[in-house]
Every structure is written in C-alpha cells, then in structure tokens.
C-alpha cells in the first residue's frame, strides 16, 4: 500500500475519532448508529460478500450479542465486558452448531433457511424467562455517548483490519474460491465446510459485539427489536450498495446510506421511506456492483458505465 494512502486512512480515522469532541450530540449519536451498522455490514461482508452466502441469520448473532450483555448485566449483575464475551460465546455456539447443517444449502435455499432460523430464535427468546420473555430487559443506563462512540469506532477498525487481512490471506482466497465455484474449490483442496463455518462464525463474532454495544447504549431490548429481520436486510443493502467482497465497500455503503436516510427523514419526513426504496431500486439497476466499483470506473467511462451495466444484466 502506498504511503499516502496510509496517511489518508490515518487522517480519516483521527477525524472520525474526534467527532464526540468537536461534533454535536446529535452527530455523535448518528455516528454511533452509523458505525455499528458499518460493523454489521462488514460482518455480513465476510459471509455474504467474500463467501457468497446470502445470510439472513446475521441478525440472530446481533440479537444473541445484545441478549448476552443484557442477561449478564441485568440478571447476573456482571460487568459489561463479561456480557460482551458471553454474547460472543452464544453467537459462536449458534454459528458452529447450526452453521454446519445450514451451510450445506446453496443460493436462495441458504438465505431462506437462515431467515427461518431467525424467526425461530425470535419466538424462542420470547418464551425464555431469563431473557425477560416478550417484555424484554432494561439495562442500567450509562450516559456516556463518547465512550460508546469510541468503542464502536474501535470495533469497526478491528473488523475492517480483519477483512483487509482476509482479502490477502490464504483463508480469504479459499472463501473467494468457494464463492466463485464451490466444487472447484473443493477439488483444489479447500476444506469447504470448515472454511464456510469459520467465515460464518467470524461474521457472527463482529455482529454479536455490535449487538452488545448497541444494547448497553440503548439500555433496552426486546425480542422483536433484537432479532429484527429488517436490520439484516439493512446490512445486506449497505454491503451491496457499497460493494460486496471489497474491504471498504461496506463502510462506504453504511455511511452513505445512513446519511441519505438521515437527511431524507429530516427533510421529507413522510415520504422518506419511499425515497429510500427508490434509491435501492435505482442503485440495483444502474450500479449493480456497488459504489466502490462505480467510483473506480466512472472516471474512465463516464455515463456509459450505467449503460453498460444495463446492457450486461438485462434479458
């Protein structure tokens, strides 16, 4: 990597890290949300973008992470860090136990199976007494947005460095091989089951941590919001909007879509959702490989880039 790129990345990181000091409260809170969404999109990127498995089960990891923190802190009066670890353990158990059978499925079938699992988890947690059933749990408040902000930023940094390492490691190449041609990868000696389960678990690790931080920040959770399938759809949209299977794409996607949604909901409150839907539809038609790809090619080909995309996928 060129030196100026490293410098640029460090400058951007410092600018981001300083937000709680020079930005308003509203900006900091918006930042925490955007950073956590970016972590989720980055986590989804590992299983969805690199491995090519469209997981709708990442919101389960998120929910387990949230409940890990909430149960540890509310029911057992343990510190936050222990709760985070507990949530991660729950997520990893889920990834290994259910990942093995479910990751045998391909394409749409995997997507639907994980969707089914997330519905089952919501219903199960709504019946567990320890988790407060369908009423939920209220956590002790800690009114320190700056701390949550830096925690989220740190998590995003670790997730992104991990994905950066992934993109040039033997493990990552194995995942890409699985995405491009699973039989071929197996023939080349990739232990596909192991690789897929590890990718699923790694993606679950980051999602669970994001869920834990979010739970402590919001101080309230119930099964509906913790296992919200809409959140899973959001991660996918952000990763795909930015560029799935790239290191920075999901972050670009999460930040830009969060910003668009925020501006829309403050400017045109009643029809914000409508615009959001139209943005997604237009983006899929005109830039199917994400913002990252568009920025790379737009300078060279100009508006013909969009025409080429149209020509490529139409019937």
């Amino acid at each position, binding site marked *: 990597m060129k030196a100026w790129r490293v410098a640029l990345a460090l400058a951007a990181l410092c600018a981001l890290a300083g937000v709680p000091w020079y930005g308003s409260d509203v900006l900091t809170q918006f930042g925490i949300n955007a950073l956590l969404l970016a972590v989720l999109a980055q986590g989804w990127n590992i299983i*969805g973008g690199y491995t090519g498995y*469209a997981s709708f089960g990442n919101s389960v990891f998120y929910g387990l992470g949230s409940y890990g923190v909430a149960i540890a802190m509310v029911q057992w009066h343990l510190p936050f860090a222990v709760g985070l670890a507990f949530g991660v353990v729950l997520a990893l158990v889920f990834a290994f136990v259910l990942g093995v*059978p*479910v990751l*045998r*499925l391909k*394409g*749409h*079938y995997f*997507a*639907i*199976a994980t*969707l*089914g*699992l997330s*519905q*089952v988890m*919501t*219903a*199960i947690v*709504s*019946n567990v007494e320890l988790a407060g059933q*369908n009423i939920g749990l209220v956590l002790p408040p800690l009114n320190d947005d700056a701390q949550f902000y830096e925690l989220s930023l740190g998590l995003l940094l670790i997730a992104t460095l991990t994905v950066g390492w992934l993109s040039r490691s033997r493990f990552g190449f194995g995942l890409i091989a699985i995405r491009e041609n699973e039989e071929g990868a197996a023939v080349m000696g990739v232990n596909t089951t192991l690789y897929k389960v590890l990718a699923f678990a790694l993606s679950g690790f980051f999602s669970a941590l994001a869920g834990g931080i979010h739970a402590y920040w919001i101080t309230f959770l119930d099964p509906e919001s913790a296992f919200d*399938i*809409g959140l899973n*759809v959001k991660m*996918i*949209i952000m990763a*795909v909007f930015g560029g*799935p299977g790239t290191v920075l794409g999901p972050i670009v996607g999460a930040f830009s879509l969060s910003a668009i949604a925020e501006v829309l909901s403050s400017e045109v409150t*009643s*029809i914000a*959702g*409508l615009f*959001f*839907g*139209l*943005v*997604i*539809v237009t983006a*899929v*038609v005109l830039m*199917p490989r994400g913002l990252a790809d568009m920025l790379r090619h737009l300078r060279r080909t100009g508006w013909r880039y969009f025409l080429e995309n*149209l020509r*490529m*996928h*139409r*019937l």
Partner: protein
Amino acid sequence: MELFAQVLVNGILQGGLYAVMALGLALVWGVLNIVNLAHGAFIMLGGYGSWYLYTYAHIDPFLGLPLTAAVMFALGYALQRGLLNLVIRAPMFNTLLITFGLEVVLTYLAQLVFTADFRTINPPYAGSNLALGPVVLPLARLAAFAVAIALAVGMWLLLLHTRLGRAIRATAQNLVAARLYGVEPRHLYALTFGLGIALAGSAGTLYGTVSQINPYIGAALTAKSFAISIIGGLENPLGVIAGGLFLGIVESLTTLYVGQTFADVASFGTLVLVLVARPGGLLGRAA
C-alpha cells in the same frame, strides 16, 4: 376430540389461503429465479383493491376477484417488462435487493394512499356459519378456501395442459432451448410475473375477507409464503397446496397444544428442518 376436530378444520381452512399466497411466489421463483421479497406487499395491494371495490362500488369480494386479479396482472406484467427484465441476469443479491426496494416503495405508497387504518372486507354473510356436526365452519372462510383450491387447481391445469403453461415450464427448464422453439422470453417472463402477482392479488382478496389488512402485513406474509413454497417444493402447484395445508394444520395444532407464541417456532422450525433434510420440498424430488 371436538376441540381437536374444530382446530384441525380451522387449520385446513387457513391452509388453503396459505397455499394461494405461496403459489405466486413459487411460480415466480421457480420460473424466473427471482425470490420476490415484495410478494407480501402485492398480497396487501390485492386486499386493498377488493376493499375499495366493496366499500365504494359494493362489489362482493368474491365477484370482484377477477377484476382485482386482472389489474394486478397488468401491474405485474408492466413491472417485469419495464424494470425486472433489466436485472434478471444479475447475481442473486441484486434481484433480492430490487424486490426488497419494491416492497419498501409499495408499503410506503400504501401508507400514504390508504392510511395506516386497519381494514376488513365485511360482506353481509361475514358472520354466518355452517354447522357440520359439532364443527363450525365460518361461511366466509369456507368460501375463501373453496376459491383458493379452485385457483390452485386452475393454475396446475394451466401449467400442465395449455400452450402458455408448456412455454412457461420449458423456459424454467432451459431458457436457450425454449428460445429456439420460438418462446419470446421478455414477453413470457412478464406474463409469468403477471400471473404470480395476479395470484398474490387474489390471495389478498381472500385474506381481506377473513383477516384485517393494513399497509404493513406484507413482510410477514412474504416470510410465510417462503416457508410454504419450500415445504411444498417449487415444481408443482399441488405440492404448494399440500405445503399450505400442512403449515395451516401445524400452526393451529401448535397453538392449541403448546401455545400461541410457539406457532412461529413450529412453522419456521419445520421450514428449516425440511430445507436441511429435503431441499426439494416434502413432495419434490430429492435434490
């Protein structure tokens, strides 16, 4: 025992409705390879269509059903021809995303136009029942069930015995070969999607006669339609009917014996089990 019989009948009646909901999704998925996340939103639109017909033009929902279906067909045809054909060869994520975008647009449009109030289509016979020994059959549900089965069987006959049906099945099996035999895919895909949306609209009409409609029912109905298509398999409308009935019965029995909150565990747990054990559906060929 009487309670069991009543719950079983309720499950079967509900299952017929489920079958029609899933039929359109399975058709579009099987032929076009699009998992239509907006399917439930189209069901919702069909429900509103019939509600308006009944409330302002006093057309009985069952008589108005062909009209609703025709309008939905036109909408589906136009959407596929104008929009979805543009991305049909893109990777799976993209078609998932675009239909999700459509779902968001339709839901918000519905909220703006129809408001968020709950609506029910209430024809004069809504409260009438038919007693069959100890078992009570609500008339509206029975009618909805009959129409649902008729639609599913009609769909099956259409796919099996008409020129259009053969063209649709040929395209699902092999697009290139179908093209060589003179199928024009852009038109055929649009027809298929139109049919799927017309079925969704009809399901919405039936849904409106037995449950409440609001702009947000779509997502849950899509999830349920998924489960049924998977349980029944994508190959055959009769499989989807079986899947719908199966799910309806499983849900009502779970509600009776385990509790309401476990109904979703049962239906989606079955979905996951079927997927892992028999990815081709309970009645489909093993994958």
